[in-house]
């Protein structure tokens, strides 16, 4: 079936004109129509435009042009601005917002000939770990629709897992790609901070946000990253570092690679999760890699650090949503203050408000030093820990999440419990490091992920290690029942 083919295989068939982009697009649009109602993974479908774009891709193919993503359908997380298409960010605040421009990520993928099927559901303004904070309702996990798919990029993860698309974009501020990838059994890559442009991505926490993707294999991720990565003059924090050929190094043998076991990640790990990781380590050893213990002593500070830094930035980033120029505006405002209060009060959901208030508090006079500055110091310590670890090893390995997908509604009343879901993923964001989650087995019939984290700009090495693992295992090929 077409939807089980890899991006490489699809590109090959498109190139040989065995299938057309139009057929492929129709196929995935049909699956979305049929399967999405049970999942709620999508906010907007762009079927008409998709078919037009597919026809354009077919014309390019007919003219002899070839490309790894030419004619390949995709889904964008609804955090990326898409010219002429609603960009809601999962919020009532932007329910009426049609972006007047394309994000750099969108523009690059568009230029490569991809076909956008639609835009995926997400936690409101990417704030959440379960996709339950969306104004458009929770996304269901295709492995068990009573479970969450993780968040905040839950729609993109669920859609990729359910084979509604060959791949989907996501963003990762504290684990929002890797955690849902783990909970839905797909491959999720968060590149180095600065590797992919943030221009046109609705900002949550600017110093942590990074765009990445959900695919069904590391090899597919390499093909997508190839297009997304690169310096963008419109994003001052994007870094002008050459983009290597990610696909070329996928098959390098791992002999001699040093993989560090993060002691802090393995301590107190649930036994079945630990067993899956044990299996993975054996595979790596079998592939010739050397495993050794490393420690990041300040890693336990990462959750509290993150929940100061991210809300602080978000409280400022979300100030622009004031009901004045675009987005939600309350009915009949009495005066300016009323306009602000009700537009924001009615436009934002509870979790967003909680973070705005937390962030406003930690930046306030009298609290700034105790919270914001202290968090910045902790962030530096965590970054230094990673740097020291990478003096000894090429990559570090650990679990992506503490548990498999949990029940919808289970943690919504307890924000701290919810925040602890990100305990293994946040460190990479604080340090700006690339991380990938790949499926590594099942607990209670639900997928689990292992996480590899590398030094800055070591995506090629990460993808190499992930690909080699996927050559030796088949966890990434499992499809949820009913979606194969």
């Amino acid at each position, binding site marked *: 079936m077409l939807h089980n083919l890899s991006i490489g295989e699809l590109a090959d068939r498109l190139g040989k004109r065995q299938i057309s982009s139009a057929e492929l697009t129709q196929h995935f649009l049909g699956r979305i129509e049929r399967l999405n109602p049970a999942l709620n993974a999508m906010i907007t479908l762009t079927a008409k435009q998709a078919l037009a774009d597919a026809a354009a891709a077919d014309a390019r193919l007919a003219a002899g042009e070839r490309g790894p993503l030419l004619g390949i359908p995709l889904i964008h997380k609804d955090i990326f601005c898409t010219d002429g298409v609603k960009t809601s960010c999962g919020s009532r605040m932007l329910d009426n917002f049609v972006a007047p421009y394309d994000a750099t990520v969108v523009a690059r993928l568009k230029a490569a000939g991809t076909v956008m099927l639609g835009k995926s559901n997400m936690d409101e303004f990417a704030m959440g770990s379960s996709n339950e904070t969306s104004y458009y309702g929770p996304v269901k996990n295709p492995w068990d629709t009573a479970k969450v798919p993780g968040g905040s990029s839950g729609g993109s993860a669920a859609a990729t897992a359910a084979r509604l698309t060959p791949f989907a974009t996501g963003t990762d501020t504290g684990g929002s790609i890797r955690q849902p990838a783990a909970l839905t059994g797909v491959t999720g890559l968060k590149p180095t901070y600065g590797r992919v442009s*943030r221009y046109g991505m609705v900002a949550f926490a600017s110093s942590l946000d990074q765009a990445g993707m959900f695919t069904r294999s590391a090899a597919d991720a390499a093909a997508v990253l190839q297009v997304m990565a690169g310096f963008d003059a419109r994003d001052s924090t994007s870094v002008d570092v050459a983009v290597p050929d990610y696909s070329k190094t996928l098959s390098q043998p791992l002999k001699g690679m040093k993989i560090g076991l993060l002691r802090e990640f393995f301590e107190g790990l649930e036994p079945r999760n630990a067993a899956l990781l044990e299996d993975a380590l054996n595979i790596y050893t079998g592939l010739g890699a050397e495993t050794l213990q490393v420690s990041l002593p300040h890693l336990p500070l990462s959750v509290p650090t993150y929940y100061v830094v991210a809300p602080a930035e978000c409280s400022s980033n979300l100030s622009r949503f004031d009901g004045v120029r675009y987005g939600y505006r309350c009915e009949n405002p009495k005066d300016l203050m009323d306009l602000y209060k009700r537009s924001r009060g009615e436009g934002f959901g509870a979790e967003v408000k909680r973070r705005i208030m937390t962030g406003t508090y930690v930046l306030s006079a009298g609290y700034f030093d105790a919270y914001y500055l202290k968090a910045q110091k902790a962030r530096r310590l965590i970054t230094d820990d990673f740097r020291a670890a990478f003096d000894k090893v090429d990559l570090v390995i650990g679990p992506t999440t503490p548990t498999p997908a949990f029940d919808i509604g289970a943690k919504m009343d307890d924000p701290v419990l919810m925040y602890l879901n990100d305990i293994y993923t946040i460190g990479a964001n604080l340090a700006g490091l690339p991380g990938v989650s790949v499926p590594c087995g099942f607990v209670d019939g639900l997928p689990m992920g292992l996480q590899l984290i590398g030094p800055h700009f070591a995506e090629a090495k990460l993808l190499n290690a992930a690909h080699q693992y996927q050559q030796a295992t088949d966890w990434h090929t499992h499809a949820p029942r009913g979606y194969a």
Partner: protein
Amino acid sequence: MSDWEVVIGLEIHAQLATQSKIFSGSPTAYGAPPNTQADLVDLAYPGVLPVLNARAVQMAVKFGLAVDATVARRSVFARKNYFYPDLPKGYQISQYELPVVARGSLNIMLDDGAVKTVGITRAHLEEDAGKSLHEGLAHASGIDLNRAGTPLLEIVSEPDMRSAKEAVAYMKKIHTLVRYLEICDGNMQEGSFRCDANVSVRPRGQEKFGTRAEIKNLNSFRFVEKAIQYEVARQVELIEGGGKVVQETRLYDSDKDETRSMRSKEEANDYRYFPDPDLLPVEIDAAFIEAVRATLPELPDQKAARFARDFGLSAYDAGVLSASRELGAYFEAVVAGLGAGQAKLAANWVMGDLSGALNRDSVDIEHSRVNPLQLIGLLKRIADDTISGKIAKEVFEAMWSEGKSADDIIEAKGLRQITDAGAIESVIDAIIAANPKQLADYRSGKDKLFGFFVGQVQKATGGKVNPAQLNELLKLKLGGGNA
């Protein structure tokens, strides 16, 4: 009234003369229809990001070098958070803890000719906000974001000024400087150059500062002076009446000539400054600083010193003539045409009749109706005795209104000075003959009547007789001698 000392510090906002905004590519030209110079970045659309305009940094560094300040090798943009409709992002990007320029100073000249050094605490880059429009809109306010994102250099002085006059002298000096540096057009009507004044009073001899009030948004030198004078009187009266000055922000109402409370310290915003994560710290290396230094023009104080030294001008004249680059250039062009020996004559004319005409008709010196070459043409005729200084004023006015050369006007109006001794003598003879009584009185010792005869001769000739020559000949004639 006991003896109070006034303490003033100024925060000057100079709009930098960049082509585009500080964080977006929109143009900065003044006066465009509302919201036609605001792009998605200025409108703070979701997802957009700021990109720093390098020209703005160059200009800030230029200013820093001109006031002998430290240019920070690393400065940081911070967000100043507050809600206002003309502030689209809900925060202003500014510099807070690490400004690009710190610890400079500037000399000002006081009325008595003494020189005073005013400390400059810092100068930092920031973006301007937009404007709220209330006129012509029923039951609504409009927002014009053309100005949003225009680069500003905020120049913060030490509380070194001790009178409204000193504050004005300092502000004028900064105004001169930024225009010299070509980093700001200095246009105060358009808001390109404005200031906030921090004003307090304390009993003379007391070291501790009094509580200050900040007067916002003063956009003329006159308003600065009047607002400070009003505020000082208000504070003194308040304290002497047993009251206390409260720390607050006040607005100056130029129509009523008074300051009014805008908001107290308690009502002040907590701006929640923090480093802007969308912008990298600004790293400035020695090469960048040296490249900017190479673009520095001769500065006002340097020019004034040179004028005084090379042309023998008084410190006051040298200061006036170097107050703007254009005025200095005009003056130098005139001196170049006349020769340094006539610099004083050139200075008197540029500062006198020329400046008077420019002020009267509100014309910039660049657009003067009498250009340096034309003025040289006039001053040469004074120097070579073709006309007297007095007649020259008449010629100048004709040049100003008719746009002709001095020679054409002298010729056309027959204003050439009479220097032919025979011609002068015959006029003198006729006058003497017509005034025998005055002659007799003069000869009997009424020396003052000499002026009477001078006046009579000039009246008869339309003032065209060379004054020195006339004096000489008249003395002879009145004394009974022959030339």
